[in-house]
């Protein structure tokens, strides 16, 4: 990695600063029939999350008599992107459900709900990259709203490397960037109190130094997201 060669990506397509989030909005309690629900929007990406439970888990063979479990169901709606997405679980949807489940299992404590399940449904009505991180942000608020015992909150953001430039909260046009070294997408999830990382994925190429830099950028961005989440939760309680 020679510092002499300059990055080709010097200006973002929507005029944002390199470390600036998209226009972000959060709302809690959007689904009256669910035990807890929330919406999180960043730019053109919208995620809605609904929580049901804790309730008795069926099929019975999945029950764990030591603790309750979290079951995540992530899905993109057929009209969420310009090509139609075939409804129903796909390979990608199953993988994203699983990583979100792992990321959120760190913060919730279901030890008093033995043999129970907490069902978490995440739907993406409109997608412009970063759907799994938007899903985690919405899900953390929905779990809190449902009164699930939680040690802390979770906030997630996707950091991108476009050629040699690190940017916060990539959108679809940036994700498809081809010039120079191309684009690298790094979704990450931070826990609010311990500062731990519960999700870190990487799609592309990056040097160890740049990755460290990206994580620090992500940490800063997540502090902003956490403030938005807390504000939305406090509004619904009034």
């Amino acid at each position, binding site marked *: 990695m020679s510092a002499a060669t300059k990055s080709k990506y010097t200006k973002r397509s929507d005029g944002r600063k390199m470390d600036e989030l998209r226009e972000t909005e959060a709302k809690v309690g959007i689904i009256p029939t669910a035990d807890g629900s929330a919406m999180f929007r960043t730019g053109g990406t919208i995620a809605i999350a609904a929580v049901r439970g804790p309730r008795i888990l069926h099929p019975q063979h999945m029950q764990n008599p030591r603790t309750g479990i979290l079951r995540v169901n992530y899905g993109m709606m057929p009209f969420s992107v310009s090509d139609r997405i075939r409804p129903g679980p796909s390979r990608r949807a199953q993988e994203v459900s699983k990583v979100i489940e792992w990321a959120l299992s760190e913060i919730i404590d279901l030890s008093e709900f033995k043999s129970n399940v907490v069902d978490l449904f995440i739907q993406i009505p409109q997608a412009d990259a970063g759907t799994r991180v938007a899903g985690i942000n919405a899900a953390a608020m929905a779990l809190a709203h449902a009164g699930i015992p939680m*040690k802390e909150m979770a906030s997630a953001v996707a950091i991108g490397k476009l050629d040699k430039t690190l940017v916060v909260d990539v959108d679809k046009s940036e994700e498809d960037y081809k010039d120079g070294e191309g684009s690298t997408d790094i979704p990450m999830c931070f826990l609010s109190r311990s500062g731990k990382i519960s999700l870190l994925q990487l799609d592309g190429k990056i040097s160890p130094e740049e990755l460290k830099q990206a994580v620090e950028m992500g940490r800063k961005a997540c502090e902003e997201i956490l403030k938005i989440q807390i504000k939305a939760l406090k509004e619904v309680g009034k």
Partner: protein
Amino acid sequence: MVEKDKDTDSSKAKIKVKADSREIVVPGETIVSGEQYLPGEGVYRDGEDIVAARFGLADVSDKLIKIIPLSGVYIPRRGNVVIGTVTDIIGKGWLLDIGATDNAFLNVAEVPRYINQNEMPEHFNFGDSVVGKIFSIGGRGIDIFVKNRGHGRLDDGLLIKINPNKVPRVIGKEGSMVNVIKDATGCNITVGQNGVVWIKGESIDDEVKTKKIIKFICDNSAINGLTEKVEDFVKTMDKGK
């Protein structure tokens, strides 16, 4: 390394709640810090800090810090009166759905008279609503009995479902709110701690009126002096007729 520690510090939420007030807290938020405080329900201790472990109102009026939940499913407690629906008849009793995380079991021995096992559906059949009291919560589940006055099967009247966290507001201090509703409509009301309310009045109109008042209480549960507000609401309803 020094820089990293600074970052971890700033990622903590640092809003502190004043004494003798109730404020909404989110999980991971420090409510108070100091060795003199004790963690109660819904909070945990992290070093000096007392931290919220669930979303709700933080109660710091005492040294014992606890959280009053605003939302979430019904968590059964011993001594709660609940209204459930019969979902199964098994061997020596009935299984009731009380909206909790587990089914409730009603043993035939916990009913005031002798019941032949072949005649069990004649007492409580599938889908019947039953008022009972929780007397034990063990590893095997929730056990209820129907021995007291007012317990048993509900044959008529109106059943409505409300948020179980609003039940204390509907009952009021020592039943003050329930008495206001009873005086206004003349209806009999049984409030299950699980958020199921049974209303029985002279006419359907009275029952619907009661339902409207209870809905009003649930929608305005955060207001101070709710009892007076409800009395005003009843007056405006009477005028409208």
